[in-house]
């Protein structure tokens, strides 16, 4: 018992220290994104565009696939339960609201965390162990500006965009089931969907998605920056990065749901 408490205490201490370091890194990154450009120190454009492409364009297929199939699954699941009340017509409303409020942002964030967050950690971690990050520092180029700022900015822009696409594709997936298996009318399906969805639903989803983007970007970069011990260290950091960002995403999501529910 004593041992367990000690372990818990140490882990908590460590987690808080990491959190502190991430927040301090985050603050620096925000400075380089939002303040420094107006003082003549723009964000590293080449990296920024590369990241936009990596996050946005290259993650698009997988994000779409996942949302599409999830849309189908969700439609079937709800249709199955709504059948009891003979109100299958509500499938559209349910899929639409679930996606825009919850599933779109969450699924997108998890897919992107596994894809982009991991890539960020692996890339920066490799740079760390091959002394590239130290070299930047000795050239008086701040690594936070040069490496973290473009990545964070790119994901802050791209994740909400991907989320909107995920919402659309998910609703289309639901529609496919409604049309093919329930035989609902197209116009009726979509009018039901849009009647149920409020601007607020979309909005809260996008707010969450911003926070998720911050989590993925910061955890991904931070884990890369603290890598030690060669290629093996990079592998370990990549795993940690994905696991901890998904964990933080789900916790944050829960927190936001509670917040939106009660206010």
């Amino acid at each position, binding site marked *: 018992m004593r041992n367990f408490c000690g372990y818990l205490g140490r882990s908590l201490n460590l987690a808080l220290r990491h959190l502190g370091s991430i927040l301090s890194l985050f603050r620096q990154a925000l400075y380089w994104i939002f303040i420094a450009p107006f003082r003549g120190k723009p964000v590293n454009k080449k990296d920024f565009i590369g990241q936009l492409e990596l996050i946005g364009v290259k993650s698009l297929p997988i994000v779409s696939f996942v949302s599409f199939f999830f849309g189908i699954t969700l439609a079937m699941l709800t249709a199955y339960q709504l059948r009891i009340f003979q109100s299958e017509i509500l499938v559209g409303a349910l899929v639409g609201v679930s996606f825009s409020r919850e599933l779109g942002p969450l699924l997108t964030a998890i897919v992107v965390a596994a894809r982009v967050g991991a890539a960020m950690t692996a890339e920066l971690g490799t740079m760390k162990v091959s*002394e590239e990050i130290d070299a930047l520092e000795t050239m*008086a180029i701040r690594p936070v500006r040069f490496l973290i700022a473009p990545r964070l900015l790119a994901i802050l822009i791209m994740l909400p965009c991907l989320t909107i696409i995920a919402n659309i594709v998910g609703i289309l997936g639901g529609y496919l089931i409604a049309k093919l298996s329930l035989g609902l009318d197209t116009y009726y399906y979509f009018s039901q969907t849009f009647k149920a969805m409020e601007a607020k639903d979309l909005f809260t989803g996008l707010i969450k998605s911003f926070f998720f983007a911050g989590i993925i970007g910061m955890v991904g970069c931070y884990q890369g920056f603290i890598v030690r011990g060669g290629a093996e260290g990079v592998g370990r950091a990549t795993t940690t990065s994905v696991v901890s960002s998904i964990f933080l995403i789900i916790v944050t999501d829960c927190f936001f749901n509670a917040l939106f529910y009660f206010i």
Partner: protein
Amino acid sequence: MLCSILFNKGVSDPYHAMIIVKNLVKSFDNRKILDNINLKIEKGKITVIMGGSGCGKSTLLRHLIGSIRPDSGEILIAGEDITKMDEDSLDNLRKRFGMLYQSGALFNSMSVGENVALPLREHAKLDNKIIEIIVKMKLELVGLTGFKDLFPSQISGGMKKRVALARALALDPEVVFYDEPGAGLDPVTRAAIDKLIIDLSKKLNITSVVVTHEMKSAFSIANKIAMLHEGKIIIYDSATEIKNSQNEVVQQFIAGSPEGPLTRRRTGKEYLVTLTGVSKHR
């Protein structure tokens, strides 16, 4: 340009110390790596740091450039203590330094030319055309004309080293730190790099700090040699003095002989302690 004007002020006093290290102490995980280091590095001269593998030479260089902060002690560069400087002032200083990392530390996502151009793009407000010319000049300097568009993954280890050197020299630094510039190079290229280091020092009055294992190049380039052993500087003198030194450790290192104080077999008792971890035996 401004840098070199500022820098040339010191010419009237050629033996003026560029870097002064005072009582520097650094431990990693309770292992004392640098134990009370004192060192004066003269302006415009070549100072060589020697020592066995893992004795802390790279760590010492990292301190000199402000990448690592020491546990205690001072490092004065041009009279200012860099161990207490904030990042902005350090950056200003670093723009006047060049550092060649042991592993080269080229950016793998950038071509050779972009690597060399990076410090210029970041710090010198120059036209792209001029940057290109400077890059060509620097690559020519290290014998790599025409490799501009290759990527680090496409060139050999020795070539990477030379590109890294070109990058370190991009901003015409006043002080250049070389971490094993000759390692992994063939004898001819190594000699060429040695000559380059000497030329830079003589013609441009650049202060050089060179970490090397190669005794031949150490003696051919050094104005002064410092030897690091067990966290301390055991000798700091000119090349001839080092050659004539009576110190057994120094002599063994120069001769590269397997027998001597550096490799002395421990007594049977010590050996037992190392193996068993028990300090008292009957």
